[in-house]
């Protein structure tokens, strides 16, 4: 229980802090709002349907960071990476503006307003 609360706090902290990202021509917020990147229910990013590969580099970089972080959390809490990713997606989802691409159970859709 305690562990779970601690985990949630950690996740929340990560979200606020944002991820330290290398300089890309476009940032995540913009990529998501322009439909070039979408959130997947495993806690990672992917290119939504119909989008070009403009944000591909950004997505790969952020995913690598996220995976490293998730792995850290997973190791600390004796969870698998997937479980951590799923929990992260739930947190990320609440913060996403309407109209952002999300993929749940393999299905792409835009977050309703």
């Amino acid at each position, binding site marked *: 229980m305690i562990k779970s609360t601690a985990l949630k706090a950690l996740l929340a902290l990560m979200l606020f802090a944002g991820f330290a990202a*290398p300089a890309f021509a476009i940032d995540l917020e913009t990529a998501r709002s322009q439909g070039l990147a979408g959130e997947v229910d495993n806690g990672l990013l992917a290119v939504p349907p119909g989008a070009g590969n403009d944000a591909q580099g950004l997505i790969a970089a952020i995913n*690598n*960071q996220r*995976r*490293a972080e998730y*792995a*850290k959390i*997973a*190791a*600390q809490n004796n969870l*698998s*990476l997937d479980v951590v990713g799923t929990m992260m997606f739930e947190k990320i989802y609440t913060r996403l503006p309407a109209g952002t691409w999300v993929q749940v159970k393999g299905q792409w859709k835009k977050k309703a307003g």
Partner: protein
Amino acid sequence: MKWTKRIVVALLFAAMLVPAAAWLAFPWYAQLLVDRALKGKPVHVQLSGIGIPGLGGVGFRKLTASFTSPPDQCSSKPATYRISVVNGRISWNIGDLDRLLFSGSLQTDIALDADSLRILPDPESFVFEDEHPRIDMKLTIVRRQKAPMVIQPERVSYSISKASVIREKLRLAGIDYRVSLSRDGKWHQPPDTLFVSKLYSDGNPSPAGNFRALFGSKRDPLKPCALILSNCSINLFEWNGSAERIEYDIRKQETSFTLKLAEIPLNELPWFKPSEKQLLRGIGKVRGSIPIEFRDSTVLVRNAVVIGEAGSAVLYPANENTRGFSLDIGAKPASAELLKNLNATITLNSRNQNLAGLAVRDLSVDLFEGKLQASPFLFDPVKNEVMLTLTLDDIHVLDRLNYHGEVKGSFKGALTGSVPLAFGKKGLTFGEIDLASTVTFSNIALRDLPGLKGNGNQNKPLAAGTFNGTLPLEYRKNILTVNNGTISGSKGTRIIFYDKENRQWLSFDLSSNTGSRALLRNIKTSLKLDAVGGKTKHYALGKLSAEALGGTLLATPVVFGSSNKEIPLTIQLNNIDALDRVRLHGDFKGSLSGAVSGTLPLVLGKNRFMINKARLRSNGGGTITTVAPPMPKRSATERIFGAPDQDADYSFKSPNILITRQYDGKTVVDFMLKELKRKTGGGELLLTSPKGKLAMWQHKNNPDRVTLSDFSAGFFDGTIRIDNVDYDMAKKETETILLMNDIPLQKLLDLQGTKKIYATGTVKGSIPVKMSGQTIEIKDGAMNAESSGQIIYATTPEERAAANQGLRTTYEALSNFLYVQLTSSLSMAADGKSTIRVQLKGNNPDFQAGRPVELNLNIDQNLLDLMRSLSISSNVEQIITEKALQKEK
């Protein structure tokens, strides 16, 4: 004196001349004498060509006598008989005449001999002819004063021998009878045996002959008009018929009696007499009883019966050494008679038609629980032809028909329809036969059928069990059609396949319930017999269709027996639930299910066959479990820590195969499955869409060699491939290279069961595999990343804190390692001991400012145990932790 003398001389001369003249003039007044003697009698005799009498007799050229019997209670009209005797001679005993002169009366014997004698009644109903007859008569002659001489016949005897009676075209030949009439016997003919040796019809011998009957002229006072024949017997063919008593009513001209046909061995009847040409053979005996009524030249047969001795049969063909059919015609408890209620109306020698033989109508008989009727027909012995149509109604001939051959079993069925046939000089010929029968068969052994014979072994499956069914058949216009037939397999009916050790490994269940759950239902086909010159030239089997195991089966028309050496045949399967019927035995077990559809184009040659691109597919699948062979002896440590003996389940989905087989057995199977899964207690291995080409029996000198080529399958979102592999099933040896592409690195790590290592990116590999018996070797296998990716080895702060400096650095480097190059080499010895060397190049952006890092990783483990369990039994994490991590600049 002179005149006196002359007168005396003249008188004396006259006295001498008168008797001489009378003697010489006998031929001129003989007729007068006869007329005078017969005056007032109903007999008239005409003589011609009478010779001058000699001492012992007188000859004549022709004697014609007519005798009229007056009407009596038995005949309303007088009957006249004309008797003509040609070239006859009446002889007497000259010595007797002396006694007549002296005593005034005498008894004398006279005899009539002639070249021929004919008796012709009027109205002309028959002609009696006898060659060289001799009639003996005893006469009493009384000479009285002043009164004519009285001639009194005492006795007449006439031994008829080889005479004949002709009635129109019918001739009774070889008649023997002794006529013996006497005054003492009141001129009644005493009973004597009448014998007729042969009956001819228009010159042709009929099957009837050797007629014998006791016959005399004395009538029964109570039946004054009955002509009585007793102890009658006749031969019909070789068959002896008898009637104790035949009463012929002269007035009504009719008779009725029962002809009993004695028991006769069938092989003595003409249709079954053993001979070269004979088609049929008869065993057993038959007897019969034929009630006959005769009236107005018409024979009525009423309710005749023929009985076969129990066990009697007719066999076809007659040759004892040939397989064929036997028709049981013996008595049964349920039906003692072979033929019952045999009725017919036979008109003999019909006067109004120019017909010598018989006209038969209303012929019907009960036969094998049914009824057989014949259309009216004529038998003309001149043409020796019969044409008629038989009508069959529910004749259960198949119940009694047995097939003696390789196919055993029992058949039942009744025939209904019509058979026009003609019997003549060409033998038996048939017109347009129209027959229908529902044939029910049971207990037909599957292994008796062509192509399924013999015991099972590794080269030949065993067909076990029996089947039964119903085939409604119709034969019309040379075409036999089957409509709505049903075939079921009895319990245990199956085809069993054997392995090299002659153990069952697979069987195909053919048992089924009957009726709506039969193996084959609604069978429809036709068989056309193309006969040329009475001989069947070839059989054309028409399109065959049937409902089979929930689906349908279609076969294209086939022509057998023609000059074509190769017969194409295509079988179409549609949704047949065949996989459910596959059973596995021995080292295999499992269950399959699903329907099979496809096309099977065959070419049938003589004792061989070819498959031309048969495509079979199924939406089903199944699981096959291989029972693991016992593990080789292992040490105690191995038994404790090694993988356990494990059975593996192979499951597959949606098989789709393309088979081509050549006459010599060379077979190529192109296969494609939706998926193939290998599952053991430790994990599962899934191949998606595996496909490839299996070539079998390509090498005559090495039939155990199987070649798999162009094999590919989806494996963890990637692909594995084998370009070519030869496998020797006997030696269990093979060597090949397993190629992999696009295999996600993460999946391979998951396969190892690691919990802390995460990776992205895909690898490709080339792994040379050598199999020999139960052992597998890998030499110099290589697996390399196809692009850059990420590897994370996640550790907790506690783990990092507990680690030494070097290890902590490694942990940190691997916390987010972005590799640009990943190469590995893999080798495994036959005992499973393996070495994997991994080389990583890349950096960690969070570690030492992202400087390039190179890592080498060596993993030694027993891969065989790993593969057996498909889960990690070694400990990659431990290896990383404890020894193999080497950080380099």
